[in-house]
C-alpha cells in the first residue's frame, strides 16, 4: 500500500484547462497534484489534434494543439505540480464539511489522496480504448480480452491474438512474442502505420516462422464463461475463418467516456457537471468543475472559457485552504510577490 498523499488540490484531468488551473492556483500558493488516465498531458489537444492550428487563443494568432500544451507546461513549471499519469480517478469521498472541505480521492492504481479541494477538469471524460462492436465482448473483458498489459506474465504460455496496425499493436506483438506460446497479429491490410523498425522486426519474426500475420477483420468471438477459444474473422474477399486463441488484445484507438465521475455523488446534467458562474463550483462545496466537463447558461466548450473558469475557481479554492487569509488582487506584471512565485523577481 502506497502512502496517502496530502495536498491542497487534486486536479482530475491534465488537459489544457487542468494545466492552466495549476498556474492560477499556484499564484495563490496552492499545491496541486494532477491525475490523468493518459500517459501524458494535453487532453484533447494532444490526443486528437496535436498538429492542427487553433486560431482563437487570445494573443496567439495561430498555435497548434501540441504547442499550446507545451507552452502551458512551461508556464506552470515554477509551481512544480506533480503528475500522476496512467491512472484513472475512481473514487471521490467527502470527509470534511461544507465549511472545511476535505476529500479522499482514489485511483485505479491504488493511490490515495487527501485534499482540501478537488478540481474536476475531466473534459469529455477519460480517454479509453475503443471496444470493438462484436457481440458479447463485455463478457470476455478482463478475463481473456485485454486493452492494456498490466502484467506480462498473464500472457505466458497463451495463444495471443493482437488486432491492429499501429504502435501499440506492434509493440505488444513484439513484447509478448517471446513469452506467449504463439502470437498472431491480425490487421485489416498488409500496411502498418506503426514505426518502421517495429514493422521490420515483426516481418522478420514472421519470416522466421515465430509469429503469424493474418490479414483480416474480426467478426465474432467464440468461447464460454469469459474464456476465449477462438476469434472469428473474415478476409478481404469476405471469406470467413477462425483464429485459435485464448487471449486477445484489440487496438482501435481511444474514445472519451465519462467514466467513474458518475459515481461521485455530484449532481449531473446530461453527463456534465452544473456549476455557478462566479466560482465554478459543483453542488458539493470544495469540488469545482472547469473546462469541457462543466455546464452553465451560455457555456461554450472553448479553451479560453476554461482558462477564465479556473482563474475564478482558484479564488474560492484559496478560501478553503487558507480560510484566515484575505486575498489581495494583484497583477503578474507589477506584483513582486507574484513574480517571486514565478521565479522572475
Amino acid at each position: 500500500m502506497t502512502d496517502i498523499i496530502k495536498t491542497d488540490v487534486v486536479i482530475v484531468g491534465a488537459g489544457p484547462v487542468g494545466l492552466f488551473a495549476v498556474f492560477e492556483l499556484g499564484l495563490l500558493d496552492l499545491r496541486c497534484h494532477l491525475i490523468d488516465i493518459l500517459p501524458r498531458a494535453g487532453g484533447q489537444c494532444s490526443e486528437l489534434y496535436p498538429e492542427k492550428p487553433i486560431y482563437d487563443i487570445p494573443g496567439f494568432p495561430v498555435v497548434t494543439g501540441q504547442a499550446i500544451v507545451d507552452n502551458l507546461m512551461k508556464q506552470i513549471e515554477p509551481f512544480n505540480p506533480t503528475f500522476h499519469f496512467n491512472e484513472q480517478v475512481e473514487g471521490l469521498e467527502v470527509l470534511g464539511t461544507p465549511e472545511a472541505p476535505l476529500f479522499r480521492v482514489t485511483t485505479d492504481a491504488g493511490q490515495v489522496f487527501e485534499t482540501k479541494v478537488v478540481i474536476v477538469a475531466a473534459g469529455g471524460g477519460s480517454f479509453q480504448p475503443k471496444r470493438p462492436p462484436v457481440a458479447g465482448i463485455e463478457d470476455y473483458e478482463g478475463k481473456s480480452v485485454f486493452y492494456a498489459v498490466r502484467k506480462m506474465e498473464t500472457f505466458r504460455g497463451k495463444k495471443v491474438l493482437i488486432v491492429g496496425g499501429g504502435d501499440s499493436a506492434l509493440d505488444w506483438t513484439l513484447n509478448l512474442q517471446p513469452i506467449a506460446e504463439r502470437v498472431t497479429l491480425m490487421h485489416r491490410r498488409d500496411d502498418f502505420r506503426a514505426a518502421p523498425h517495429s514493422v521490420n522486426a515483426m516481418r522478420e519474426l514472421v519470416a522466421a516462422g515465430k509469429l503469424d500475420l493474418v490479414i483480416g477483420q474480426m467478426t465474432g468471438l467464440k468461447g464460454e464463461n469469459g474464456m476465449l477459444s477462438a476469434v472469428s474473422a473474415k478476409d478481404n474477399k469476405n471469406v470467413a475463418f477462425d483464429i485459435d486463441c485464448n487471449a486477445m488484445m484489440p487496438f482501435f484507438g481511444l474514445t472519451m467516456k465519462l467514466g467513474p465521475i458518475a459515481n461521485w455523488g455530484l449532481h449531473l446534467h446530461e453527463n456534465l457537471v452544473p456549476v455557478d458562474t462566479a466560482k465554478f463550483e459543483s453542488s458539493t462545496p470544495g469540488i469545482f468543475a472547469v473546462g469541457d466537463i462543466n455546464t452553465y447558461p451560455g457555456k461554450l466548450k472553448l479553451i479560453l472559457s476554461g482558462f477564465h473558469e479556473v482563474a475564478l475557481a482558484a479564488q474560492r479554492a484559496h478560501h478553503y485552504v487558507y480560510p484566515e487569509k484575505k486575498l489581495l488582487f494583484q497583477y503578474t506584471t507589477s506584483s513582486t510577490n507574484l513574480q517571486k512565485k514565478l521565479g522572475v523577481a
Partner: protein
Amino acid sequence: MTKIVFVDHAGKSRQVEADDGSTVMETALRNSIPGIEAECGGACACATCHVYVDEAWFEKLGKPEQMEEDMLDFAFDVRPTSRLSCQIKVSPALDGLTVTTPEKQG
C-alpha cells in the same frame, strides 16, 4: 446546393441539402443523421464518421489520403468503399452522392 443521400444500415434513405465547401460529416451532423458520431470534430483523428460510399460514386471521389487510410484502421467492418466522411468535401460535382452509415461506429 448539393444533394446528398444518407442510407442507414437498415436501408432507409434520406436526402439532404449540403453546403458546398462543407464536409459530408458536417452535413450529417447538421441534419441529425444517426450513425455518425464525429467525436474528433473532423480532425481525422477518431474514425467515428465512417461511411460506405455507393460503388458508383467511390471512383469519382478519388482515393483517401494516407492519413485517412491510416485512421480507417480504427474503424470497424472496413470495406473497399469505406471512407471517413469528414474527409469528403462537398462540391457541385458530388450532387446525388450516396453514402451508407454503418450499424455502429464502435
